[in-house]
């Protein structure tokens, strides 16, 4: 099923919608959001300079740092009382990136999520278990609302508690699972370990995955674990843009369809910032169209991908983006949570008993991401007892947990054991291959 007629329009009609909404959006932000107006003035561009879609490139970029500089709501275009929902995601430092929605924004968002749920094969007959963590993360409530819109029955399970997850999958005859792909693999293996064969004993046949990328080797594993009947697709979004709902794979599995009547994607060279021709790989830049609370123009997502404009066999004419193949910055995705090394550094530098050098190791154990942070002990006062060293370890772990929203492993080592760098430090080692 195709949820909206806008997904199948001829290209010239899609572009006509984009141009009309772009003009409105640019006038809207110039009139309402001071940081945008200042940037546009500095770049010497006015709303009336936008005549064609190509004029988009005249507009300045928006960066994640803009959210930090105008924390918490300096980029918002409406009064607080018009906001009906806030969400938040990781910032590059201690403060999160806060996003807000008006009633119209929520409706637009959840309709876009409904589109990608349909792309992945969901219908009103499905029983959907949401195994994303709830809270301020947009993933859980986004898929929750989108699946309700199409009439599916939604179980807001949240993450963790594998026993309960399995009980609901069985007893409620769940047909659709929403999770990170790595958690879905972990859960599937747990189920098999208990002697349950998902392809015979469960009704589950659809997986809608997000929060982290799903590689083709992961999809192959998914079929081994859950059975060949399992149709698994992934979708793309980020809280700044709205959350999930920006793009999603259809069951043809040839890229994620971008909801182009609401988002204009561009691909740029992250170094030269030049816009690249269609089909070339680079950093994805997204302009949101028609958002009221938090309009966003030329947002640097940091995600590396390419766009394909050929129509798809599924009937949709919207362009497709390839699976994300890396980052233009050093952001890590750990168990679906975005982590910036700067966040970790900020925590560590406040702890006097350890030195300023650190290393981050990311591995996948038992299908789940494990992040180990190694720091150098420098304070000899802690050597009077093991209990004091243990307390230091606990204190660092607790501070990291509260900053990142994620449990980490910690290793204390002797001073000067970590490698020193003269130029740019290489502190992160990611041993995950193809997401496995």
């Amino acid at each position: 099923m195709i949820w909206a007629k806008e997904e199948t329009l001829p290209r010239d009609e899609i572009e006509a919608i984009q141009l009309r909404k772009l003009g409105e959006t640019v006038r809207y932000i110039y009139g309402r959001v001071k940081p945008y107006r200042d940037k546009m003035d500095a770049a010497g561009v006015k709303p009336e300079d936008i005549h064609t879609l190509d004029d988009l490139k005249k507009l300045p970029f928006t960066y994640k740092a803009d959210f930090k500089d105008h924390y918490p709501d300096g980029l918002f275009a409406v009064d607080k009382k018009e906001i009906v929902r806030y969400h938040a995601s990781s910032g590059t430092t201690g403060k999160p990136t806060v996003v807000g929605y008006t009633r119209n924004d929520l409706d637009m968002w959840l309709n876009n999520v409904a589109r990608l749920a349909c792309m992945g094969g969901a219908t009103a007959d499905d029983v959907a278990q949401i195994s994303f963590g709830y809270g301020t993360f947009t993933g859980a409530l986004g898929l929750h609302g989108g699946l309700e819109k199409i009439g599916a029955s939604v179980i807001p399970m949240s993450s963790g508690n594998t026993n309960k997850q399995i009980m609901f999958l069985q007893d409620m005859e769940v047909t659709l699972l929403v999770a990170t792909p790595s958690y879905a693999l972990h859960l599937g293996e747990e189920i098999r370990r208990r002697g349950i064969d998902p392809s015979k004993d469960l009704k589950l046949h659809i997986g809608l995955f997000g929060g982290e990328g799903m590689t083709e080797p992961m999809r192959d594993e998914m079929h081994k674990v859950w059975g060949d009947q399992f149709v698994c697709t992934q979708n793309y979004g980020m809280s700044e843009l709205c959350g999930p709902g920006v793009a999603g794979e259809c069951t043809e599995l040839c890229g994620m369809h971008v909801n182009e009547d609401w988002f204009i994607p561009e691909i740029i060279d992250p170094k030269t910032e030049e816009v690249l021709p269609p089909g070339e790989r680079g950093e994805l830049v997204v302009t949101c169209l028609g958002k009221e609370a938090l309009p966003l123009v030329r947002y640097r997502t940091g995600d590396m991908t390419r766009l394909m404009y050929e129509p798809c066999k599924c009937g949709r004419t919207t362009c497709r983006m390839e699976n994300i193949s890396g980052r233009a910055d050093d952001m890590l995705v750990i168990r679906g949570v975005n982590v910036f090394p700067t966040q970790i550094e900020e925590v560590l530098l406040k702890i006097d008993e350890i030195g300023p050098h650190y290393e981050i190791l990311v591995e996948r154990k038992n299908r789940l991401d494990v992040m180990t942070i190694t720091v150098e002990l420098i304070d000899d006062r802690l050597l009077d007892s093991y209990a004091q060293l243990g307390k230091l370890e606990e204190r660092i772990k607790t501070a990291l947990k509260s900053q990142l929203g994620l449990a980490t492993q910690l290793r204390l080592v002797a001073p000067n054991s970590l490698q020193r760098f003269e130029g740019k430090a290489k502190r992160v080692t990611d041993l995950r291959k193809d997401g496995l």
Partner: protein
Amino acid sequence: MIRQISVFVENQPGSMMRVTSVLTEAHVNIRAISTFDTPEFGIMRLVVDDPVQAKSSLTEKGFVTRVSTVIGAELKDEKGNLNQMLTLLADGQINVNYIYSFVIREGKAPVMVFSTDDYENAEKVLRDADVRLVEEDEL
């Protein structure tokens, strides 16, 4: 009372040797050594003849090193003497954090080295019972 040095070491091959080789180069004599079975890192505790030299050499080589006070009690090499010393401490409600032992010189009795948070009382209880306490110049 005597001074002990504590060194932070990682649990991997060669880590204790790196400490002893620094002390050897610095001509420091090791009288006693103790470590515990721990998963990732350990505290290596040593009694040496020159704790000041040991601390400065190890610190210079980048080791996290601490000098702290412990009590050394010389016991007669007879059955029941350790039990007697521990009974004295127990009766005095003195908690022992950890304990290890060494022999000063050939022909001499064993020395028990222990750490406590209550040095004054520990010393008093032992002296009152005529237990001989070892001082640094004897090391």
